């Protein structure tokens, strides 16, 4: 057992798992956004959506590299191996990010809910006791702040805009809201990471997230649905049916032509 494992009680597999959770969120959301490429509602937004995707895939690359560097030589993997050669049940992203783009309202509500979460989470992770993660968090945070400004503007603009845009936004909130509790799940690993000073307290992240999102929804004339089914399972590799198709597309070349350099 390494010196750090003795002081923190964490094993390389725990660090890897946490970096995968963060990296897979960024990868799958970035992959979803890249589906918009060339199909946005107008040219400036086409550029913006591509830019969001670009940032997220870049973040995923850093986080998956970090995940892959944990453990001994037999366990280590490249970011590409992790992205392209795992099956769906080994992915650790939350179900929210794998939900289909739907219309622009669904894409932007999904984006806003994640951006607020990521901004709060990464503003804590810059103080993580796991230094390589804290270093990545600093870079991520700068990008996420722009993302949230962008999606927050759209939340307001479309929530208030026309009857149609309001209805579409409300529908998106209704459809996506019950994917958000999963963001704050406080499982055994999360608790051990928190105790070791690697990850923040999820209950306080949730409180801050609600304090940000609920007034913003209200200001945009939107409201969260009152009750319904609650999604869970991503952290255990139990995903929605969508992830299999995302991976089938994303991993096609690596699967069809194994071992090639590209």
């Amino acid at each position, binding site marked *: 057992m390494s010196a750090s494992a003795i002081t923190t009680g964490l094993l390389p597999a725990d660090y890897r798992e946490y970096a995968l959770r963060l990296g897979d969120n960024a990868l799958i959301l970035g992959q979803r956004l890249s589906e918009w490429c060339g199909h946005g509602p107008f040219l400036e937004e086409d550029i913006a959506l591509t830019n969001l995707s670009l940032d997220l895939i870049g973040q*995923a690359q850093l986080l998956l590299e970090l995940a892959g560097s944990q453990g001994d030589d037999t366990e280590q993997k490249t970011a590409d191996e992790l992205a392209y050669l795992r099956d769906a049940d080994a992915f650790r992203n939350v179900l929210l990010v794998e939900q289909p783009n739907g219309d622009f309202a669904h894409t932007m509500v999904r984006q806003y809910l994640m951006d607020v979460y990521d901004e709060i989470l990464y503003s804590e992770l810059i103080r993580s006791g796991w230094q390589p993660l804290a270093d990545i968090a600093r870079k991520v945070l700068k990008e996420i702040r722009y993302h949230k400004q962008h999606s927050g503007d759209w939340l307001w603009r479309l929530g208030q805009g026309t009857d149609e845009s309001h209805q579409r936004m409300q529908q998106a909130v209704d459809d996506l809201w019950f994917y958000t509790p999963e963001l704050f799940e406080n499982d055994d690993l999360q608790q051990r990471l928190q105790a070791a000073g690697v990850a923040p307290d999820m209950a306080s992240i949730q409180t801050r997230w609600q304090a940000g999102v609920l007034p913003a929804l209200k200001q945009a004339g939107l409201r969260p649905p009152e009750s319904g089914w609650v999604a869970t399972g991503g952290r255990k590799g139990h995903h929605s049916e969508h992830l299999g198709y995302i991976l089938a597309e994303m991993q096609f070349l690596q699967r069809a032509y194994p071992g090639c350099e590209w």
Partner: protein
Amino acid sequence: MYSQGLNGPAEKNTDDSPEQLAAFQKRIDAEEKIEPRDWMPSGYRKTLIRQISQHAHSEVVGQLPEGNWVTRAPTLKRKLILLAKIQDEAGHGLYLYSAAETLGVSREQMIDDLLSGKAKYSSIFNYPTLTWADMGAIGWLVDGAAIMNQVPLCRCSYGPYSRAMIRVCKEESFHQRQGYEVMLKMANGSPEQRRMAQDALNRFWWPALMMFGPSDKDSIHSAQSMKWKIKRFSNDDLRQKFIDATVPQAHYLGLEIPDPELKFNEETGHWDHGEINWDEFYQVIAGNGPCNRERLAARRRAHEAGAWVREAVLASQQKHKQPREVA
């Protein structure tokens, strides 16, 4: 913002007197840049609007064949590069629409003309991208041909277009190199990768040569455009320059150019080539290429699906002063 495109068109010059035309030509001959507020012949304006908007449309439609592979890019690095490249292309489109707007045409009008099929875009984007090697071939050949066309446009007599081209060319040259690097990997890779690379060259070679337009003897716009210094070299001269630059690059890759008549001419110092299939060229221009219908349908779909978003932006601008800062 999109609503900039809602500005109405400027007054057109319809009464070009011989004195005005002569004075204008004198400025052109003195290599002066023409700026948006300057007097210009209506034909000059019309030509530039046609050319710049067609160029802008090409950048925008050009996102589609590459976007076709972005979700399937084989590594994270390749996905990042491709996303950045497509983002550049969309940025060029934006820049060029703005340059065209300085001539008094609105972006809305230009987009309507594209979607109605009235305005054209580069014929090359009506060919499908069938394998990952096509991402290499497009960067290498299509962006390579675009650079040959666009470098002289950096000296175009119309100031806004010339300045746009200076910026665009810097990025295109990066695109061309990354495309060649994809080809290099594929050509030196597994037998399947090599086959994909050769196949991509086979499919994109002739369409890339067609990007330079009709041969000089059939080009109806060339002579006047040259006199106005919108254009600096003829279609055939640029095409030859492209072939001369590209043939050695293909040889370095160990790939074969799909032209049995291709032969180095010791006397002229140029590569002689076989005849282009002009029937195919005019068919694609007329809307009968392999992907014309799909490309336009995709643009129309995006435009129609985004209508409610654009309406909401305008409504929200009119209704409220936006409170800052949300959550």
